[in-house]
């Protein structure tokens, strides 16, 4: 019996032979660590980029989105728990798509980018990495939609082939991470700083859960940290909570709470703060931080108007707007 240690994420699972790590999909087979979901996604869709959400990265484009079973976090309010809180053998549907096939399908469908999303691409790291390399060779961009709970060495390697990431910063409180997600805060903050240093375009999402992480003082601390460590032009999305999975006892986040959080973060110095998961809310549109001009008008995941200049500037004051526009 040879146990293996998975060094991918801070859990550092010690996996006995024949067993899986905490994520359920990284398995010790005959003394070797195997990623059982490699080339076997369970969710493949073409989504608007705004759904990820990435508002400052190729807006309005279609993104080929792929996810497998498993996750290294166990959030009580997980929105995709049917996918993330299962091992591959528990899924009703598993597709056959090795990295080359995946990229080829994305190209055939006219997508300009691939998003590794739905569960967490960290647990299908090798599949993400190999697909991303091929995607770059074919001229596609790569996006990670992740909780950012990963060790530094594998993250630095992955950053070489990733162009953009939306990182779910669940709260600016280690206790919340421990209670709600069976994880810790610091590795996520470290991952954000590393991605920024490696030149990955970053947007941050914070799902506001009533009474658990909607304290305005905590939101202000989080906004200050983002401003100082990632830069004031880093987009921050406050997303509406819906009762899900093992957290059905709390109501959906009131619109007023999302608006207060947005005001707090903008007051703390962030230029682009959005309200998400709230259809038709004006807080989903992009305005020029200098003169307030409406730059990108959105309804839900759809773009009503894009007034940016071709080089990503405000059409009235010529202010450069941070993002990847081409």
């Amino acid at each position: 019996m040879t146990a293996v240690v998975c060094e991918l994420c801070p859990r550092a699972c010690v996996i006995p032979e024949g067993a899986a790590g905490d994520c359920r999909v990284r398995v010790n087979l005959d003394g070797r660590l195997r990623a059982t979901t490699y080339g076997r996604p369970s969710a493949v869709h073409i989504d608007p980029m705004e759904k990820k959400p990435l508002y400052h990265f190729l807006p309005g484009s279609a993104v080929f989105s792929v996810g497998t079973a498993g996750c290294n976090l166990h959030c009580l309010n997980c929105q995709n728990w049917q996918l993330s809180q299962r091992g591959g053998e528990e899924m009703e549907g598993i597709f056959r798509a090795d990295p080359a096939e995946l990229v080829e399908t994305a190209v055939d469908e006219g997508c300009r980018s691939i998003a590794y999303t739905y569960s967490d691409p960290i647990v299908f790291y090798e599949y993400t990495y190999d697909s991303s390399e091929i995607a770059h060779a074919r001229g596609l961009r790569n996006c990670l939609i992740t909780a950012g709970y990963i060790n530094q060495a594998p993250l630095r390697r992955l950053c070489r082939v990733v162009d953009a990431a939306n990182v779910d910063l669940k709260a600016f409180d280690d206790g919340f991470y421990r209670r709600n997600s069976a994880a810790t805060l610091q590795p996520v903050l470290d991952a954000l700083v590393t991605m920024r240093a490696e030149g990955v375009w970053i947007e941050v999402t914070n799902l506001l859960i009533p009474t658990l992480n909607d304290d305005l003082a905590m939101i202000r601390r989080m906004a200050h940290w983002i401003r100082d460590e990632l830069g004031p032009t880093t987009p921050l999305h406050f997303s509406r909570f819906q009762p899900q999975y093992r957290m059905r006892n709390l109501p959906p986040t009131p619109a007023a709470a999302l608006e207060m959080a947005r005001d707090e973060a903008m007051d703390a110095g962030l230029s682009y703060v959005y309200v998400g998961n709230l259809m038709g809310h004006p807080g989903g549109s992009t305005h020029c931080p200098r003169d307030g001009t409406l730059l990108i008008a959105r309804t839900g995941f759809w773009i009503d108007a894009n007034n940016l200049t071709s080089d990503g500037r405000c059409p009235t004051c010529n202010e450069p707007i941070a993002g990847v526009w081409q």
Partner: protein
Amino acid sequence: MKSAMMRGATNRTEPEQDRPTAGTDGLRSPPRRRLFAGALMLPGLWLLGRWPWSTRSPCGGPIETALRDVPSAALRRPHNLAG
């Protein structure tokens, strides 16, 4: 107990049991026969559950046969996954 007495239950005479007491005549006693038959059925049911043996994977499900091609016709359909 009080309510049973009020209904007059104490005046009724119970008929004598004419069944053999369990354990006095070995396997011919009905409860033991049922127990024996049940014990015989268990391995049979277990074997039925394993059928067909050749297509089962060691972890309990026919994994390889469940793999499907990516359905290009369904890629743009609405879905309820977040992210």
